[in-house]
């Protein structure tokens, strides 16, 4: 057992940067995938809808921890070696896409059918109506829950520590194993997560209030 030093806190801050990188990478990749899923759903194909519903159901209906273990260890067993960071980003992206696609699909579905009709009756094509009328309105409705989901993603990214990837939680575990200052270390980790998530939560609530005016 040794005393805590400044280097330990720098190590935690480095872990925090990896947590941020992991979360935002997953949000970006998951967001792109979710946008593709939403576009596919607009095609109104029964086969595509069933396939997407299965994917969304699978990722929403199973624990993220299990998904992480599957993509890291499971794929390795199948002969597909994948780095911990890549497995983490892949899993978190697929997980994010399942939730974000539902949030965004819901935001589009919430736009009254009459808005589609109004565009149609003015001679706008379906794509023009979508891009000029529906999406700008849906975006306003989707931003607050999307930002809210980012908070969940940041906190859930702590599960990546089971893969041995050194993000904030894993960094804390490593320092704790040699110092046993659990209260100070995990208290600091909690404060760092809070410092990251609280402003985003506030932003989400402000956006929600603004868009509901």
């Amino acid at each position, binding site marked *: 057992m040794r005393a805590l030093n400044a280097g330990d806190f720098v190590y935690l801050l480095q872990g925090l940067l990896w947590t941020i990188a992991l979360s935002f990478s997953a949000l970006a990749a998951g967001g792109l995938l979710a946008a593709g899923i939403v576009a596919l759903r607009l095609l109104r194909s029964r086969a595509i809808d069933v396939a997407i519903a299965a994917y969304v159901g699978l990722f929403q209906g199973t624990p993220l921890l299990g998904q992480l273990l599957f993509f890291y260890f499971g794929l390795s067993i199948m002969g597909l070696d994948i780095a911990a960071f890549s497995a983490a980003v892949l899993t978190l992206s697929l997980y994010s896409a399942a939730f974000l696609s539902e949030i965004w699909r819901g935001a589009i579905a919430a736009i009254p059918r*009459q808005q589609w009709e109004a565009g149609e009756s003015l001679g706008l094509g379906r794509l023009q109506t979508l891009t000029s009328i529906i999406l700008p309105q849906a975006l306003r409705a989707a931003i607050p829950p999307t930002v809210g989901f980012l908070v969940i993603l940041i906190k859930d990214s702590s599960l990546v520590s089971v893969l041995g990837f050194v993000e904030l939680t894993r960094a804390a575990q490593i320092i704790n194993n040699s110092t046993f200052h659990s209260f100070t270390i995990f208290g600091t980790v909690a404060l760092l997560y809070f410092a990251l998530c609280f402003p985003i939560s506030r932003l989400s609530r402000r956006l929600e209030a603004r868009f509901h005016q």
Partner: protein
Amino acid sequence: MTMISARDVRKRFGTLEVLKGISLDIAPGERVALLGRSGSGKSTFLRCLNGLERIDGGGLDVAGIDLAAPKPDLKTLRRRVGIVFQSFNLFPHLTAEQNVTLAQRKVLKRPADEASRIAADVLAQVGLADKMKSYPSQLSGGQQQRVAIARSLALSPTLMLFDEITSALDPELIGEVVGVLERLAANRDITMVLVTHQLGFARSIASRTIFMHEGRILEDGPAESVMGTPATVEFKAFLSAVLT
């Protein structure tokens, strides 16, 4: 030449037959009021005229477009036919001016400055020259409905359809919309078909009245004579229900 020619038009939703053989001709410049109880099929017929609903049987020719064709030319139809809805259906994220310029730019491919100039002109026609930069949420119901009328007018339609456009308005706001339509009715270049429950509104705008009941036309003629001397018990019952 007719603006609208309907021959035995039929429309059903599932097992419910809403239009049971509508036949009529409407000449260019006519102002026609479609009256009838809720569920009589008048709004459905209006939506068929704009291609928002496909007809299931019969023939329907609107502004030179055959709507009974397997693939009707809806793009051309909507350049010629404007529709104003009961619930305005303005785009809430756009200002009044942007609501009026959107289809001009996207559909008619008018340059932005020309579209803005036309928007200013039609918004002035409906008395909203000072509300161009206002969002729908900043306007009263009557003002929103006038923006909706301006939005259609900006596309220079030859036929305008109005679907119960005063029904969602408070009584004190109806007058301003009726005033706009009365001025519009003076312009004989535009054919007008309006669905309404309000007899006074129908009288002030329409030269011809059609009464629909359970998917059929029961009365059709000059507004004053049809409303003055109803020929069917159904229309008499409708008039007495509306007037009491």
